[in-house]
């Protein structure tokens, strides 16, 4: 990987451009070699005259050696750690090389040219391969006074349809002190580096932050810069799930995406601003986070309204012992845990990583025993029955069903309504009719990449009533979020309560007690809400009432 620094002598300046050699403490006449833990670098000057002088730092890394030197079992690495852009793209490794090779220059001291070192001069930096979007490069460097030219690189000229790669060819020009230019590269290259497989240790991070002292405090994105530094702890060891993705030849994130990776900044909405690095289509995994972030009612987020609505519904049905099925990162669990009304809470998710994330976010190990004892986190799957989930007052499926493939919904229904069989079930799911109100959401697109479907109010009501009839529950509906007169509320909720009716679902089909002379037929009662008239009539829009019948 390569970086070049070009100094141009301004007209009438008393110094030749070749003085850059003094500032960098590298002689323009020779080729110098340096060795680093991760490879070898060379400094030479492709051009050096009075008007223009360019220093090139070329770093050659040895990906095979890099891994072997770690002395880790090779089975722990993913293929992308063996075959990757590290030898070519500017990264934290290049930053490391800059830090070592230009140590004195970064300090801004020069024995021979102290005044020049302290002055800004016309500089051009070129990084032929940077793994970041043009916009993000602009966002990082423009505030520091650089004019940024970032040209996306074609993915493969043989396949024009594939479009652009995630790389840019970057040129920065500006009047800068050499020491600032270097320290900015030193700090920002790793921030730009979107990939997760670089090798740098904690001490280095400290050093890097110290290097930014002069300019970092004034950078509008200083928090993002710091967070991407400290938060991004690269996972060197492939998770078991990532290994499955690899064996299936799909990017790990395609399977291992139950919760955002920490440091990805997804929660903070950073993704929206910088793109996901996925390249051409600009798709965000979390279109919903972006779309829902600009709610019509800006004061309370839809997620919060949803939590409140679920908690209220749980209290309406008297659900003190609660299953949060598909608890994910534990956002709802936090609400439940902080409310003493709920005596026993079980968070179930199919993703082990989500459960670990939830445990961390809820600081379970630091909670007093009386609090922690009310919560259990366990791995489970909604398409398998689980006897340990029986006997609860209520189960919550908050924004879960839309992540299940429609052909598998019957298994979920059986596992929840037939096998676990809580007294009440609260289900929330997006109302697809509302999607037209999200300006950033392309027409016809779903709110989240992992959504297998999104239903209209009519579709949801039809499903819910069918499930209720099959499993002997009654069901009522409530809107969540501000109700739009035309398209309804952004989220829809169904509240199921167990009735005394007979299960006619797949569970007991054909196994009822014919022999006891029952006059059994399909349940005749029409599904009706069991909510108190007050809460129902006020919450339920006329339209959903109509659709429900």
């Amino acid at each position, binding site marked *: *990987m*390569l970086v*070049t620094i070009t100094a141009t002598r301004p007209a009438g300046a008393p110094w030749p451009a070749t003085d850059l050699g003094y500032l960098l403490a590298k002689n323009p006449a*020779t*080729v110098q070699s340096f060795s680093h833990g991760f490879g070898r670098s060379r400094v*030479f*000057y*492709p*051009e050096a005259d009075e008007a223009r002088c360019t220093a*090139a730092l*070329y770093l050659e890394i040895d990906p*095979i050696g890099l891994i072997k030197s770690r002395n880790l079992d*090779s*089975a722990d690495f*993913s*293929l992308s750690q063996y*075959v*990757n852009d590290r030898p070519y*793209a500017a990264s934290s490794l290049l930053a490391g090389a800059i830090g070592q090779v230009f140590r004195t220059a970064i300090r801004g001291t020069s024995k021979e040219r102290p005044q020049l070192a302290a002055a800004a001069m016309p500089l051009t930096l070129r990084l*032929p*391969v940077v793994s970041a979007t043009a916009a993000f490069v602009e966002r990082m460097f423009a505030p520091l006074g650089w004019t940024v030219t970032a040209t996306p*690189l074609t993915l*493969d000229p043989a*396949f024009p349809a594939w479009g652009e*790669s*995630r790389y840019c060819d970057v040129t920065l020009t500006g009047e800068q002190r050499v020491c600032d230019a270097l320290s900015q590269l030193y700090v920002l290259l790793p921030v730009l580096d979107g990939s997760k497989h670089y090798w740098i240790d904690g001490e280095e991070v400290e050093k890097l932050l110290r290097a930014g002292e002069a300019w970092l405090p004034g950078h509008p994105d200083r928090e993002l810069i710091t967070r991407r530094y400290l938060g991004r702890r690269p996972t060197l060891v492939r998770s078991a*799930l990532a*290994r*499955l993705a690899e*064996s*299936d*030849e*799909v*990017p790990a994130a*395609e*399977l291992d995406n139950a919760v955002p990776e920490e440091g990805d900044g997804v929660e903070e909405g950073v993704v929206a601003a910088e793109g996901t690095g996925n390249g051409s289509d600009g798709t965000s995994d979390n279109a919903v986070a972006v779309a829902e972030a600009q709610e019509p009612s800006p004061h309370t987020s839809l997620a919060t309204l949803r939590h409140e609505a679920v908690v209220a519904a749980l209290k309406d049905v008297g659900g003190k012992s609660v299953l949060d099925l598909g608890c994910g990162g534990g956002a709802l669990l936090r609400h439940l845990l902080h409310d003493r009304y709920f005596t026993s809470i079980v968070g179930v998710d199919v993703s*082990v990583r989500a459960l670990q994330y939830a445990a961390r976010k809820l600081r379970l190990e630091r909670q007093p025993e009386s609090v922690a004892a009310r919560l259990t986190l366990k*791995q489970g*799957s909604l*398409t*398998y*029955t*689980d006897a340990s989930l029986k006997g609860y007052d209520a189960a919550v499926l908050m924004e879960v069903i839309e992540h299940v493939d429609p052909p*598998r919904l019957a298994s979920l229904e059986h*596992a929840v309504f037939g096998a676990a069989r809580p007294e009440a079930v609260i289900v929330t799911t997006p109302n697809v009719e509302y999607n037209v109100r999200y300006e950033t959401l392309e027409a016809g697109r779903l709110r989240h990449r992992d959504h297998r479907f999104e239903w209209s109010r009519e579709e949801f009501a039809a499903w819910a009533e069918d499930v209720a009839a099959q499993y002997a529950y009654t069901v009522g509906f409530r809107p969540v979020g501000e109700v739009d007169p035309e398209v309804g509320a952004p989220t829809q909720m169904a509240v199921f309560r167990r009735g*005394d*009716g*007979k299960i006619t679902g*797949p*569970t*007991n089909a*054909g*196994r*009822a*007690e*014919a*022999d006891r*002379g*029952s*006059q059994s037929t399909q349940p005749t009662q029409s599904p009706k809400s069991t909510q108190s008239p007050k809460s129902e009539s006020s919450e339920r829009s006329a339209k959903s009432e109509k659709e429900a019948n």
Partner: protein
Amino acid sequence: MRTLTVPELSLVVLVGTTGSGKSTFAGRHFLPTQVISSDWCRGLVSDDENDQSATPDAFALLHHLAGIRLRRGLLTVIDATNVQPKAREALVKVAREYDVLPVAIVLDVPEQVCRERNELRPDRVMGPHVIARQRRELRTHLRNLEREGFRKVHVLHGVEEVEEASIAYEKAYNDKRELTGPFDVIGDVHGCRAELESLLVSLGYVLVRDEAGRAVDAVPPATRTAVFVGDLVDRGPDTPGVLRLVMGMVEAGHALCVPGNHENKLVRALTGRKVQLRHGIAESLEQLEREPEEFRKRVIEFCRGLISHYVLDGGSLVVAHAGLKEAYQGRASGRVRSFALYGETTGETDEYGLPVRYPWAEEYRGSAMVLYGHTPVLEPAWVNNTLCLDTGCVFGGSLTALRYPERELVAVPAEQVWYEPVRPLEPAARAGRDPGVLDLGDVLGRRTVQTRLMGDLVVQEENSAAALEVMSRFAVDPRWLVYLPPTMAPVATSSREDVLEHPVEAFGYFAAAGVGRVVCEEKHMGSRAVVLVTKDAAGSEVGAAAARRFGVTDGSTGVVVTRTGRPFFDSAAVTEDLLGRVRTAADAAGLWEELGTDWLLLDCELLPWSAKAMGLLRDQYAAVGAASRAGLGATIAVLEQGAARGLEVGEMLEEQRGRREAAESFTAAYGQYCWPTSGLDGVRLAPFQVLAAEGQVYATRDHGWHLALLDRLCAADPVLFQATARRVVDLGDEAAVAEATAWWEELTGGGSEGMVVKPFDALVREGRRIVQPGVKCRGPEYLRIIYGPEYLEPRNLARLRRRSLGRKQSLALREYVLGLEALERFVAREPLYRVHEAVFAVLALESEPVDPRL
């Protein structure tokens, strides 16, 4: 000398004062591991066997240990004084919890003897009053022991009786494991004598009639035995006739019979208890009224003597009227009997106030087949190795028997509707096909999967956890997912200096393993695809194999899945298009008739690679190409500038130009496997094995058979299908080996990924070990994708050659064996959870850490 009878599985409670000789007695008659003593438990929880303050914890431990042993079906002896009713009550409760019989053995030894013995033990510090008190308590309650719940109470009076007593074990009444059949298990008869006689005749029995022409026995053919699942009586036209025949058969040793709820009620009615005259009992009573008193007495005696259930054939078969869950099999308690007669309820009631049946069969995971009746169904349907044989003869259905172990159903239709059903018979129990029959317990945690070929294979917990996520979030319906393909190990690292892999090592490996003939198949560079296709197109009613064999009724007619069980295509329509093409080709090639099947499972490679791996190409391969092109280009440009200035960069320049060339080769390597597709346009399917079809696993057939069959499929639709080029090589024939090697060089020189070398006979053993079912031998250019653009640089190659294949080979074999296991289970129509267990294990193993480049 006293002989004390003790059921083989029971909780034996020793009762006696301190010093009465319980420990000595226990040591003499039982294994040390069978005896749990309170002193020992007290020591475990306090380091002091005499620390009375530890007694509550000691007994908690004792009860816990006893419970675990009983759950596991082990005779357990409690060595504690147990003179207080409270102490015994707790033990009776433990016995009941595990449905075993509690037995009390009382050591009634004179106080004087106990006191003397106690004084000899220096560690015992209790005073004489303790023994006196214990003895008082013992004597007070001695006569109440049976009432406390002990099924047997043996009281040994005096030292002599204690010393001379011996133990004799008795089998449980329900234990008929020594009877190995074959059996004819007959469903609910309900007074349908004529149909029963016809059924017995069609089963080959010879009826024996008395002088009045009434059937009083039926002699089975050869060594067979009839087994009745109960409910012989009520509703039907001739309850006495059925009873006469069945009682005769049982008395003659020609039949076994378990009681049904109707026999139970009938006995109560006949013995003067008040019962509701509903559900056909009135008919029975009326019919029996016409019989002599003697006959009625015989009926009462017969019905009373029936045992709630039988465990037969070494434990492989269980017969109970309403079925029996695994934990209750071979056990004895009130609730076991109640379950066997009535089944279990959920505690809920339906809208008519009737209890809701608990779907025990759906959760059944036992190894024993369970045959039962009780609930009439139109057609018997297997649910997890259980089968209900009540086909509602009395309601106008039929009377059904299952031949065991043949699993053949034999039925005779009802001669008429003898009793109006209160509602029409429900269709067959659908539970066997219920999506819900899979339980978390079937897959999660550390698991041991028993396989036919390699015995027990272990799946670690973290791998199950990863597989669960993929299976739940991404995989297709498990009813379709009857197989996942195994990974394949590469050939051993070549001894040649200039390549990593070469055919020489493949041939060498198989020759050393004693394989005489191999097949070399061109390795198509696409993505693995397993295609399951049913014969009947969507919407066609005929057969509808999707519903009939797989239980899938959503309109899909098969699946195309990736190696982790995910749908290959995002679009269901494209999947159905592909399935339709395969179906049509199979029609044309006549495969359905030839294999006698209406479904086919094919192992294939689907091309191009870019059809599925586009994400990976974009993120990784093409990305590396783009970065290298730009990065090296810029570097070479500045080096050339430097060279022009006279800097000594000549060597660097050469090096970078070499790297650029390698990067170009890398780009070219993946580029060969990419071309645009749209829907099915441009998609090619290269099938290389017929894994299975109805009734048969073909995966172990020789590859010659597979390829010949598949060639016909390919010929039927050459646009979609891509035939697999191959060479069959006799490893003893040097010329053939050389020709195959040259072929590999030609293939890989032309951009092919390489080839797979397999034993011609597919499944080959070397002694007790299984030979790898294939090894891949990849070409040098292809390997750039795997090992990086510059891996062929001598200094890189030298380091990469030190790769270790052991784990990969082990993984490949285990996955192969599990895949075959899944197929065998599916073809044998084992329950879904059994098939799923093996398929899931393949996926879990695939998440084990292995060098991904192998």
